[in-house]
């Protein structure tokens, strides 16, 4: 039976000779399960990435503006950015894993076409990560040049995001592959003239402000709860203003995407699922802004929480929409429903039980430790801020 | 009753207690060999602790590589035949168990030893350790450097493959260009007008008997000088008030802290031999043309490149320029003598920086195709 799996339906081969064959093992579970897990973890990964990149920008901004309360925000990001990076990396693993299971033959092809540009992500991320840690551990001793260290990390992250956007766009355009490889026979192409790359990229960068702004709002809520009313409120107001930059950038990106859209996308855009996603995304975006606004001046965590969930919903809708676009664009060359499923329910059960047990354990441990961390932060603030 | 030497009372307190084996053994020996003053002196030997302390390791590392060379060289001698040079090396590489490994280690250790000696020479130069009373230590070191380079040159020929033969022939023709005595020395070294199997006999004798005896003797003298005089202190350390000066004891602290580095270098030699084993090119054919772009080993590249810039009639200029370096090395200890350093000393440092930069630039230039 395996040997039959190895031969794709003849029609697909005729459509694109260069498309690699399906993996002989097929899918380990029905693809919708993997897609669901991917949507969840990818959204979290993108939020972590947005938090980090936005955090770097806000750190630099507040460091240079030096308004009252800004120093605290800069310190907050300086402390939390390395953790942000580690969660970017960790949360990026499941989506990349599932991408390779579901779209392996497309993804590996596009990655090899990018070649050394793809592998550059690794040393660059090591450098950026090290810079952020260096900043964190030595800022007390050398406050002067710390901004330079962080400022170096910013273009690195921008570049890494650009590499990712290009790779995942190339996944969706197999018709260009053979020409690209013929022009670069060992791989090594960063960008390939695909018009949607730049608007997509703007979507990625745009989200940074919402995520980082929301983090500052959370910080403000905790400050108010701990009795630092004035700086807490300032923090929240600042965070809210920052958040408003995102919709501007996202609307610009949406317009750009509209003008750059591929010809055959119109039919897909009318599908009901797509309309539902767009509606949820818009409502979510408005809700995020409203809840963020309502958080200002209050110590209740419910408002920042609802704002975060709304933002998560927006990002998740974007992620799901992107996947639908991808499936649509790959239709002439790849049919997900035609991929055989050789179930590994046993392994899936092991994974899910590990996941549930793990998350429960981590949540319980976090609940035990967070009060200690909070009181430490509180003590430090009490020493730094009078009254 | 055989007369015993008396152990000095201050020694009694510093030796291990008499009920322990080490205590009994040391007292046994001290009763027969009155060497307590030497031991006492050595135990007080200290190494200054400052930001450049790491350079003090270089001499020991060079000595480590020398020991590796002696051991691996002896093992190679079991199978090497000067009458059948290439065939015996091929046998070592292809048939003898671990022969390839030992041969590659010998080669890598040679290169690393010469590199370490460059580091040792330049670090002692820039720390101005040649100043009085250490002039003779410096001179003996210069002689050791020259002998080590000769070790490299002589050993290079022994496999008698294409590279060895032609590199040696090129090197010999460079020696010939030395004024007055060049022709005579080259003829003596070669055993004739050209590099032949007779040359191997001479190089082999030098490489495995004459130079080892000489180098061990001079290393002994060099170390004796260092032990007796102590380790030199650079100016910035010597200028500190006594209570701020910190020292390691040599015979426990420093030596023990150095030893793991030697263990690492052992592993490094095996790793280098594993990753980049020494190749054996086809057997030398003296009647063939020299391979294109034949060059000496990296430690001779700077001279080679410098002399290439002065071909034909102007070669004397190149030779004179190049001879400034060994000349400079020989006289620096007598020219720059002031502690703390003075204007002359600062100029010596600047000239040294220029020389080092030149060495690196010419070596890289010589290496490029």
């Amino acid at each position: 039976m395996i040997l039959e799996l190895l031969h794709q339906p003849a029609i697909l081969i005729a459509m694109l000779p260069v498309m690699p064959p399906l993996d002989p093992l097929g899918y380990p579970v029905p693809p919708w399960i993997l897609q669901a897990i991917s949507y969840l973890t990818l959204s979290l990964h993108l939020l972590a990435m947005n938090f980090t990149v936005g955090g770097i920008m806000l750190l630099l901004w507040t460091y240079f503006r030096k308004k009252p309360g800004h120093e605290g925000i800069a310190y907050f990001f300086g402390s939390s950015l390395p953790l942000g990076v580690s969660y970017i990396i960790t949360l990026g693993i499941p989506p990349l894993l599932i991408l390779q299971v579901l779209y392996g033959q497309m993804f590996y092809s596009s990655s090899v076409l990018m070649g050394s540009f793809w592998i550059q992500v690794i040393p660059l991320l090591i450098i950026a990560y090290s810079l952020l840690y260096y900043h964190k551990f030595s800022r007390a001793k050398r406050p002067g040049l710390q901004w330079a260290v962080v400022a170096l990390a910013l273009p690195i992250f921008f570049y890494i995001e650009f590499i990712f956007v290009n790779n995942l766009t190339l996944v969706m355009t197999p018709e260009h592959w053979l020409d690209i490889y013929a022009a670069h026979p060992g791989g090594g192409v960063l960008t390939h003239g695909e018009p949607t790359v730049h608007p997509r990229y703007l979507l990625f960068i745009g989200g940074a402000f919402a995520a980082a702004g929301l983090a500052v709002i959370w910080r403000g809520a905790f400050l108010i709860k701990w009795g630092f009313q004035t700086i807490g409120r300032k923090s929240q107001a600042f965070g809210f203003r920052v958040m408003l930059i995102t919709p501007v950038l996202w609307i610009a990106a949406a317009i750009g995407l509209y003008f750059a859209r591929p010809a055959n996308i119109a039919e897909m855009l009318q599908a009901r699922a797509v309309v539902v996603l767009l509606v949820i995304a818009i409502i979510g975006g408005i809700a995020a802004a409203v809840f963020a606004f309502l958080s200002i001046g209050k110590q209740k965590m419910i408002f920042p929480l609802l704002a975060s969930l709304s933002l998560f919903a927006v990002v998740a809708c974007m992620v799901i929409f992107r996947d639908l676009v991808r499936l649509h664009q790959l239709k002439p060359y790849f049919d997900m429903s035609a991929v055989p499923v050789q179930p590994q329910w046993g392994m899936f059960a092991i994974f899910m039980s590990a996941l549930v047990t793990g998350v429960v354990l981590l949540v319980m441990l976090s609940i035990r430790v967070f009060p200690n961390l909070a009181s430490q932060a509180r003590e430090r603030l009490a020493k730094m801020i009078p009254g | 009753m055989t007369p015993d030497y008396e152990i000095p009372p201050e020694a009694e307190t510093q030796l291990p207690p008499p009920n322990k084996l080490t205590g009994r053994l040391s007292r046994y020996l001290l009763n027969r060999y009155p060497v307590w003053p030497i031991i006492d002196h050595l135990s007080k030997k200290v190494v200054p602790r400052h930001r450049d302390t790491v350079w003090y390791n270089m001499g020991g590392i060079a000595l480590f590589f020398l020991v590796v060379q002696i051991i691996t060289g002896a093992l190679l001698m079991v199978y090497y035949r000067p009458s059948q040079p290439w065939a015996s090396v091929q046998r070592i590489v292809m048939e003898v168990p671990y022969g390839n490994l030992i041969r590659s280690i010998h080669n890598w250790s040679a290169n690393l030893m010469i590199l370490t000696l460059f580091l040792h020479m330049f670090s002692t130069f820039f720390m101005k350790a040649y100043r009085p009373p250490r002039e003779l230590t410096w001179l003996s070191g210069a002689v050791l450097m020259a002998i080590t380079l000769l070790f490299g040159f002589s050993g290079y020929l022994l496999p008698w493959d294409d590279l060895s033969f032609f590199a040696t022939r090129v090197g010999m023709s460079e020696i010939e260009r030395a004024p007055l005595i060049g022709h005579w020395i080259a003829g003596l070294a070669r055993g004739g007008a050209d590099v032949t199997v007779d040359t191997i006999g001479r190089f082999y004798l030098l490489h495995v008997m004459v130079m080892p005896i000489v180098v061990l003797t001079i290393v002994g003298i060099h170390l004796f000088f260092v032990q007796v005089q102590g380790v030199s202190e650079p100016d910035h350390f010597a200028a500190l008030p006594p209570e701020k000066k910190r020292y390691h004891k040599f015979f426990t602290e420093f030596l023990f802290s150095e030893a793991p580095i030697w263990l690492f270098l052992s592993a490094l030699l095996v790793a280098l031999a594993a990753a980049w084993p020494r190749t054996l090119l086809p057997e030398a054919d003296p009647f063939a043309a020299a391979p294109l772009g034949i060059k000496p080993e990296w430690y001779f590249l700077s001279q080679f490149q410098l002399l290439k810039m002065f071909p034909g009639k102007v070669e004397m200029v190149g030779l004179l320029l190049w001879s400034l370096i060994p000349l400079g090395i020989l006289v620096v200890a007598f020219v720059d003598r002031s502690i703390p350093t003075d204007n002359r000393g600062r100029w010596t440092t600047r000239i040294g920086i220029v020389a080092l930069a030149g060495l690196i630039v010419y070596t890289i230039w010589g290496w490029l195709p």
Partner: protein
Amino acid sequence: MNYPFWDIPFLGNGLVVAIIAIIHILISHLAIGGGAFLFVTELWSDRQPMGQKIRDWLHRYATYFLVYTTVFGAMTGVGIWFAIQLANPEATSLLIHQFVFAWATEWVMFLGELTTLYLYFYGWQKNSRSLQVFLAGAYFVIAWFSLFIINGILSFMLTPGAWQLAQPNIFHGFFNPGFVPSLILRTFVMFLIGGLFGIIVATKIRNDDEFKAKIINFSAKWVIPAAIIVPVMMLWYWSTLPANTVALIKGGAVGVAGGKLEIITRYFWLAVVSGFLIVFGTLFISFRPQAASTAGAIALFLIAQLGVMGAEFFREMARKPYVIYNVLYSNSLWKYHTDDQNYMQTAFLDNARWDPRPEPLSPQHGEWIFRLQCASCHTRNGYRSIAERTKDWTAEFGYRWFLDMDKTGIMPPFQGTNEDRAALSAYLVSLHGDTTTAQQILDQVEQAPADSIANQAAANDMIGKVKP
């Protein structure tokens, strides 16, 4: 050839994987061994009168540990993943589709490792003793499970055991013959590395020789279990190696088949020598712990890095010519294809998908066969240089040599027609200036009938002269 080929000149894409992996293995082994070290030291400190002093020192250990493992460990681990998907997408795809949920479970372990480590590290001042000890222990157990999982996948590649492509059973593949010895071996090596790291951090204790000696002696003890268990596990591991691999290793010690087979033996000895040197060095340091310097301790740690280089190179080379033993060759040829004689005689570029359809028998034809069938292991002029290995070839010799190249024991069989062989041979000899064309080879061969035995002898003769 189903996928495009990632060309890295001089190094070859395999070496890129190797370099990232060798760096990663040392750090990842520290991540787990250091976790055990944190846990045990926490417990030990509770039984010592100077417990708080020990814990203050342990926090320094944890600081270096945190940055080193989260930054370099995590990134180089992802780096291996990036590199293998570029270097061998076919094998990566097979592994991912078979083991995705194992990897997903390993990811849960990563999440747990990271979070428990952060909770342990950032809460160290205020967490209760029992919570700290629990967090350290949880970190170690979770981290060890991530080793458990990756070890199954990695050992599967060399010794797939009862696993079959036609009826893939993940548990057969995961619990393969090499699984247990490598798991135990790696666990004890991890303890060793955790201890070496402790020695490094201990050398930073200033002006308190007695405490420094105490910590160094404690750290040095972590090397002892490895000194005993690792050699035993190596013997067990050795017994699971494929017969072909054992022959290669033994044949390499005395160069019967010449230089190229020795490399696996050389790396094996590097690992063994490094092990001895570490044990010896640790004993040496324990003899006089007050004298230990940071440079010396780092030197020991670097010996471990070289040992890892030896062991991992050895393990990877042991799989030759396969990337997944008996299933997939390193150049992405499937074993079930090479068992099919009809398939093996079809035109190679018809099966490959990423060539620009060069003119048959042209120099580009040969070059594309080289790129898609050979370049996964051989660079032109760099690592395992093909130009170096074929520099004495005549075009006709190459043409015949491909017929039996799998008999060397380290190469896959050649997939392609006579035209393919001629084109490839013409390309290879052109690298050293021979201008014979593929057409000329075919014409010459037609005139002289192929005599396989004589050619085999000539091929065997050539093997002895191939460089490492």
